[in-house]
């Protein structure tokens, strides 16, 4: 019944054409010179196609209309003309050459990454993005926001359903940024339509792309290469801010990371570890091992009642740090998060393992 009402309301919406304004029909022009170049090319090719279509289909439909037996039209008998064949081979070639020239210029321009002011390293993981600012020494992971995860099955969807993350990438405006894109497991693709950046993330290789964003704002994108189960659930959100705000953000981020590093040296209580561990688990592990710890056998094993989880901590730390087959390595998480999530697995789900301190993880690295 609910489906029926959505259905009818959408059909009604279809009739009132102003709705189309809200929903994109065409490619975005975007906020970089590259994206605008692409948009212009796209429109040029589109209009060329429209003109050719009008000529070809026009001729065809005129013929269908006028040269029909029911109107008494007698068939002619011509069936060859080298002149005509040459004509309709040459004209398309000329049209194609005239399209190829601006296309080549755009391609050469967008491949030129030599003039970058800063670099961002993007590492794809099944199914999240890791962002590194090598110069600023900042590194974090960006996951699908919990609000979206919680509403996949429900009827009420949050505003940016499937296009919201927990940690956004923050970039300064009017700066040439070079993106280095790679992957830790399968092939992914980092795509933000408004930047005109879409680059495959290949495991073991690094690709680059660049963007100079000239408008402050929030831009959203998605992974654009099938990367397994949750390919549809690894969005990208970028906050583009003024240069001053960017400097402030960097400072704040650096002090936060220093605080985390410091806290790795203290002894954590079980309840602190459990509280932190639960959220780390839900963000990083639940996609495969499930919120209830039961996994999705046979591919993703349960952590409930697992031998490793209930056995010595060193084995448990090892598999989480270094991964095994389809289990990803989680070296990218910091010592505190790792200690917390391992403790959480060992204590939750009626497991009976010992608790693990950040120092244990540090020495196991």
């Amino acid at each position, binding site marked *: 019944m609910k489906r029926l009402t959505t259905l009818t309301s959408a059909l009604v919406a279809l009739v009132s054409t102003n709705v189309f304004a809200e929903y994109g029909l065409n490619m975005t022009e975007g906020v970089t010179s590259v994206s605008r170049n692409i948009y212009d090319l796209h429109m040029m090719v*589109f209009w060329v196609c429209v003109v050719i279509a009008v000529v070809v289909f026009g001729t065809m439909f005129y013929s269908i209309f006028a040269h029909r*037996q029911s109107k008494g039209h007698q068939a002619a008998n*011509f069936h060859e003309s080298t002149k005509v064949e040459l004509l309709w081979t040459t004209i398309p070639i000329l049209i194609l050459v005239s399209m190829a020239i601006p296309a080549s210029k755009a391609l050469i321009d967008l491949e030129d990454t030599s003039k970058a002011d800063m670099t961002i390293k993007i590492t794809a993981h099944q199914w999240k993005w890791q962002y590194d600012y090598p110069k600023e020494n900042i590194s974090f992971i960006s996951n699908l926001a919990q609000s979206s995860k919680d509403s996949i099955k429900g009827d009420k969807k949050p505003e940016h359903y499937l296009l919201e993350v927990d940690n956004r990438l923050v970039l300064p405006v009017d700066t040439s940024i070079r993106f280095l894109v790679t992957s830790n497991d399968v092939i992914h693709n980092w795509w933000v339509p408004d930047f005109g950046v879409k*680059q495959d993330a290949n495991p*073991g290789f690094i690709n680059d792309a660049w963007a100079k964003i000239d408008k402050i704002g929030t831009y959203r994108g998605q992974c654009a290469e099938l990367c*397994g189960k949750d390919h549809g659930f690894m969005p990208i959100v970028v906050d583009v801010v003024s240069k001053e705000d960017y400097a402030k953000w960097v400072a704040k981020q650096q002090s936060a990371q220093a605080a985390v590093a410091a806290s790795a040296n203290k002894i954590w209580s079980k309840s602190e570890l459990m509280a932190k561990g639960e959220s780390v688990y839900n963000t990083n592990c639940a996609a495969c091992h499930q919120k209830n710890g039961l996994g999705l056998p046979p591919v993703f094993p349960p952590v409930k009642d697992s031998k490793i989880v209930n056995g010595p901590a060193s084995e448990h730390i090892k598999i989480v740090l270094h991964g095994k087959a389809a289990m990803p390595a989680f070296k990218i998480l910091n010592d505190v998060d790792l200690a917390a999530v391992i403790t959480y697995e060992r204590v939750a789900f009626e497991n009976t393992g010992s608790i693990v301190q950040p120092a244990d993880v540090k020495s196991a690295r």
Partner: protein
Amino acid sequence: MTTATATIPHGVHHHGPEKGLMRWIKTTNHKDIGSLYMWFAFAMLLIGGALAMGIRAELLQPGMQLMEPQFFNQLTTMHGLIMVFGAIMPAFVGLGNWLIPMMIGAPDMALPRMNNWSFWILPFAGGILLSTFFMEGGAPAFGWTFYAPLSTTFAPDSTDFFIFAVHLLGFSSIMGAINIIATVLNMRAPEMKLMDMPLFVWTWLITSFLLIGAMPVLAGVVTMMLTDRNFGTAFFDATGGGDPVMFQHIFWFFGHPEVYIMILPAFGITSHIIPTFARKPLFGYSSMVYATASIAFLSYIVWAHHMFLTGMPVAGGLYFMYATMLIAVPTGVKVFNWVATMWRGSMTFEAPMLWTLSFVFLFTIGGFSGLMLGIAPADIQYHDTYFVVAHFHYVLVTGALWAIIAATLYWLPKWTGKMYNESLAKIHFWWAVISVNILFFPQHFLGLAGMPRRIPDYSLQFADFNLISSIGGFAFGASFFLLTYIVVDCIRNGKPVSARPWKGAKGLEWTLDAKAPYHSFNTPPSRALIEAESQHSA
């Protein structure tokens, strides 16, 4: 007409088919095998279509309602594989089997036993592929393009069965291609020159060479996958010194010719049907032959236009962009020739003509989006979005599948000696052509607005067009019940026809009995007959 009873002594040859089931298992007759291929393809079309209905049902509205994401990926993967390898390719081989001997004045195919084998491999390959749904870990879920390492290190165990099935399908296709080449080159009526051959024969001959070139490459790439998965090699694994992008190069070196394998025979069919119903000879016969050959050649040197975003150097991007744009030229020539054939004809619009005219229109739309995709910088925004999904469905469904349906209706009278129900066929045509556009046209908008392909769930701004597309999908899917009825009704109750039910039709097949005899030509047709029936005679 040309029964052989007079020339061959009795007791030496059987003239009719064996009775019962063994007829179909043991048959070496090109018509029987053609029918087997066609029914197999039709069954696969319905199975692949059922999977597509599952996909569209999940995409009807945002949120996951019916299935888990992993199962969704299994559906898209198996849908693509079944449609390409199970439906479209076997259907064209079936048409080739049925029609080529009749069109070149031959009694049968050159290698009839191999013909039997190449068909009977298919049900096993298809069965193995489908059985992966019931295996632990589920069916392959890495897309019909099965990019490594998703299809190697990260794939379910059933992948090895998938590899085996692909090998079998490849064997079948290669044997089919060898058979067609041998038949066309050796069994042609002695009086028929190559440039007398009808275009369906020409396009199939050229397609066969594409098959022989491309299928071994596919076999190679799945074998490399197999050893990467099971025997410790690292062709596609960077940690072992391999390269996942190399997988894509090899795959698309097969994959791009493959898409032309699925469209060249459709061009041939179109070049038969338009002249018949325009009552005018095909315009530019020889340029059609040359255009087909150039498309086939070009199809081998454009593969990396599927890989513009893999990190290709600029020079590579430029080259593959130019080569791809070049394909538009011979393809354009074909479309212009068809329009020129219609021009000043005397057209009627029986169902096969309706399918063919809409083929020309809708395939060309797919061609336009293909041209746009070939512009390397613009492909940055199109790649792996629903724009691509719209593109390949316009060329595959309203291209290849449309031509297959047109051909089935056009030659059904020759196969059965009976006529299908024309008014039902017209209803079916309009139903299908309207619903298929509701299904696929909005996907252009979805892609341009930024919806990636192969996702089981989407954000809210994509909801409306997905809903429309799904409704069109269900309507299109339902239209196949009517098609089944039309074909079965023709076979059972159709009105008997004359030997040449379409007045304007030319071609040796129409000189045979109303229902083509079990062995097509036991005495080769004369030069006079060949000339009178050839496509380039006025």
